[in-house]
């Protein structure tokens, strides 16, 4: 279709992504009678929120004593003091309300005998600022993400939200002043392009776990929103911090929830030793994820791994009994039976650290507004653009996310962004004219893939990228490895210029979608290796063998990566909370 004839539709708010963050925001906006369009490349309930297992944190104190301030302390400590304490306070204070709302929306939480929501212990949780283990994670068996995503979609059906299912967002549209005014998208079914003009745009596109070969992430997690932000000239923040979940099924990557250890499971090495006793004497298996992942990696490296290749450790659950496993962990039990042919009620599960979560993302403030440095101001608001959830970096997770805080993050900040949008819409009554050049650029990006002839295959490039990231940007890092990573990703980007697809059909062209996704991954990969190469310290998930210590004097700051010339910048951590005293950095022991 020629660019002049492309249909244009207008909405108050455009939400890109229909996982928990996008749907929570959509619901808030629809109920405020704003006109909302939700664009998603998959039907909403296929979004990756559906795969979250263990639960969401909130200091409800249904099982053990708790309060939001303890939750805040654990989150700050878990972040290795890189999290912004104003956003963390906001999230932890909002958590109980957000959980109760979700319950009212219909989430079938597991229950305690008194009828209240069931809560289980999770990693990095404590009572009384580092005291005894807390039980803060609200769960619907081990299918909490599914329960939350479906309930949110259902409530959006009630609220009559406008869905553009199986539409792919190509790029953001702007005016010359830099205001974001919508997006250029196309209908995957028909191939027809559409320009969505919106007074506000919320990116809620999730993470980029497809950067890695072995990942718990779904195939759709290709960092689309992050790459759109980069192409719009905005930075990505703290991309060097990528979480490796300690317990993916070894060699395959399916997630085994931290809830398995929360319910009493533990890790053993080839000698049958409880290995975490050595690395985290107090919290043991419920230490933070970065700590447990490094412990497993070290056990294997030092020859105490299990199996014929000695390349994994075992997660033992059989002592919990079939009843507990069936009641609290039915989903992972089924996954083990399906993919390993073993029942965890009888046999231990082979596990190994697996790429899981993008701590970094599009920088925002605690209202979900995207912020970027302008001249001497480190955080200038980008008008009309919001981001929430895994694609964003608000930053509540800092250098390491606590289990149970991701579903909380998407709901708290999806909702907060929507509330801010509602206010913004009161002042901004009309659509601004957009810079047609930004439409042209998006159109060109899409139609670049119409070219024919010989060239590199997208599939091969994707494989090479995943291998490169796994080899050069994994759990432990050094300067040499990372510099090689930078070089290799640059080479892949060069090869990408010569890539071709052979399918040029307009109808449900999955080859074209995959090519666009790979372009997105390439940009996000570059942000990740550059940021990792720059940070000369070890903090949270970023472990440098050549810089094994945390360095608060030089590195207690956020990294910002810009696509243009691969420029890096930094900005201070917001250490001042909203109402309580700041938690100063301390040695992090579990």
């Amino acid at each position, binding site marked *: 279709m020629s660019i002049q004839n492309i249909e244009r539709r207008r909405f108050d708010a455009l939400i890109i992504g229909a996982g928990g963050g996008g749907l929570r925001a959509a619901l808030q906006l629809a109920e405020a009678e704003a006109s909302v369009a939700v664009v998603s490349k*998959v039907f909403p*309930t296929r979004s990756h929120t559906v795969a979250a297992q263990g639960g969401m944190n909130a200091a409800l104190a249904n099982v053990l004593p708790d309060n939001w301030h303890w939750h805040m302390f654990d989150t700050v400590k878990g972040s290795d003091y890189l999290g912004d304490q104003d956003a963390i306070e906001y999230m932890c204070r909002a958590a109980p309300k957000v959980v109760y709302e979700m319950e009212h929306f219909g989430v079938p939480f597991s*229950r305690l005998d008194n009828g209240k929501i069931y809560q289980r212990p999770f990693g990095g949780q404590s009572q009384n600022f580092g005291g005894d283990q807390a039980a803060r994670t609200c769960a619907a068996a081990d299918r909490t993400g599914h329960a939350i995503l479906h309930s949110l979609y259902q409530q959006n059906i009630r609220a009559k939200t406008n869905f553009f299912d199986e539409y792919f967002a190509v790029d953001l549209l702007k005016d010359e002043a830099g205001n974001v005014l919508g997006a250029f998208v196309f209908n995957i079914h028909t191939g027809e392009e559409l320009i969505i003009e919106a007074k506000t745009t919320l990116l809620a596109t999730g993470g980029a776990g497809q950067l890695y070969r072995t990942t718990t992430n779904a195939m759709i997690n290709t960092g689309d929103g992050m790459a759109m932000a980069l192409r719009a000239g905005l930075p990505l923040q703290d991309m060097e911090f990528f979480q490796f979940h300690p317990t993916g099924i070894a060699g395959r990557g399916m997630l085994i929830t931290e809830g398995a250890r929360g319910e009493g499971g533990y890790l053993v090495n080839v000698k049958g030793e409880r290995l975490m006793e050595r690395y985290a004497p107090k919290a043991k298996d419920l230490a933070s994820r970065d700590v447990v992942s490094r412990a497993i990696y070290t056990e294997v490296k030092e020859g105490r791994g299990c199996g014929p290749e000695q390349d994994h450790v075992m997660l033992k659950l059989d002592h919990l009994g079939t009843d507990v496993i069936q009641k609290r962990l039915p989903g992972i039990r089924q996954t083990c039976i399906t993919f*390993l042919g073993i029942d965890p009620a009888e046999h231990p599960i082979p596990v190994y650290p697996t790429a899981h979560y993008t701590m970094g993302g599009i920088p925002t403030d605690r209202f979900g507004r995207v912020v970027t440095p302008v001249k001497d101001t480190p955080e200038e608001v980008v008008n009309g653009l919001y981001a929430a959830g895994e694609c964003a970096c608000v930053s509540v997770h800092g250098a390491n996310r606590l289990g149970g805080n991701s579903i909380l993050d998407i709901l708290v900040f999806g909702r907060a962004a929507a509330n801010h949008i509602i206010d913004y819409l009161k002042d901004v009554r009309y659509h601004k004219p957009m810079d047609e050049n930004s439409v042209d650029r998006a159109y060109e990006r899409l139609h670049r893939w119409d070219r024919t002839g010989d060239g590199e295959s*997208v599939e091969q490039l994707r494989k090479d990228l995943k291998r490169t990231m796994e080899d050069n940007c994994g759990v432990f890092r050094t300067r040499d490895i990372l510099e090689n990573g930078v070089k290799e990703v640059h080479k892949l980007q060069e090869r990408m210029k010569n890539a071709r697809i052979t*399918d040029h*059909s307009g*109808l449900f062209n999955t080859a074209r979608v995959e090519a666009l996704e790979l372009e997105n991954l390439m940009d996000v990969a570059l942000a990740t290796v550059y940021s990792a190469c720059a940070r000369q310290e070890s903090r949270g998930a970023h472990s440098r063998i050549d810089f094994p210590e945390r360095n608060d004097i030089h590195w207690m700051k956020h990294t910002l990566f810009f696509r243009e010339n691969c420029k890096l910048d930094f900005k201070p951590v917001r250490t001042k909370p909203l109402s309580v005293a700041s938690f100063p950095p301390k040695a992090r022991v579990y």
Partner: protein
Amino acid sequence: MRFKIYRYNPETDKEPWMQEYRLDDIRPGMMLLDALLAIKEKDPTLGFRRSCKEGVCGSDGMNINGTNGLACITLLSDLKEPVEIRPLPRLPVIRDLIVDMEPFYKQYRDVKPYLTVKDPLPEVELKQSPDDRDKLDGLYECILCGCCTTSCPSFWWNPDKFLGPAALLQAARFIMDTRDQATGERLDALDDPFKLFRCHTIMNCVQVCPKGLNPTRAIGEIKKIMVKKSL
């Protein structure tokens, strides 16, 4: 291993046809989705949906050797050769294995699949006993893959009047939820010769559900509650 896969691109094909593929590198534990991805590497024009690769997103429902299932949790070693793969039956085909799910989603929307509470909401959770919560097990886990409904002869015969097992399972999920206060309306809406009562307990749905759910039993429970209510 040999595969015969349904191909149809309305832009270029007059009618659907079956394409044969061969894969030599079959490893133990490989799922059908792994095979489809390997085939797609060789032939990127083959269209199918997929995402999570572990049976929770519900994208890759398809008809495999005559039975509906999810490709990502179907072991190749359980399949007879040549493996014949077709789109889910009785939904319009968009392309290859990709069907238009809209009729299926409409059935879902038709049962008003959302918790309805009429009383004022407390500032905390609505209480529910563990026993009452247990009543939702086997109902809430549905992933909307469409395997059950498109395997149901009653749906094939009356796709626009019978709601199909997936939507009825959802109806049951809310009827059984002790927190929901629209039970009467829900039951009234189903009291119709077709919507619910076209279920003839053929039980194809139970056989194919990749999550091990039992829509037939859920439909039976709704019928029982209806009878009780009318007495």
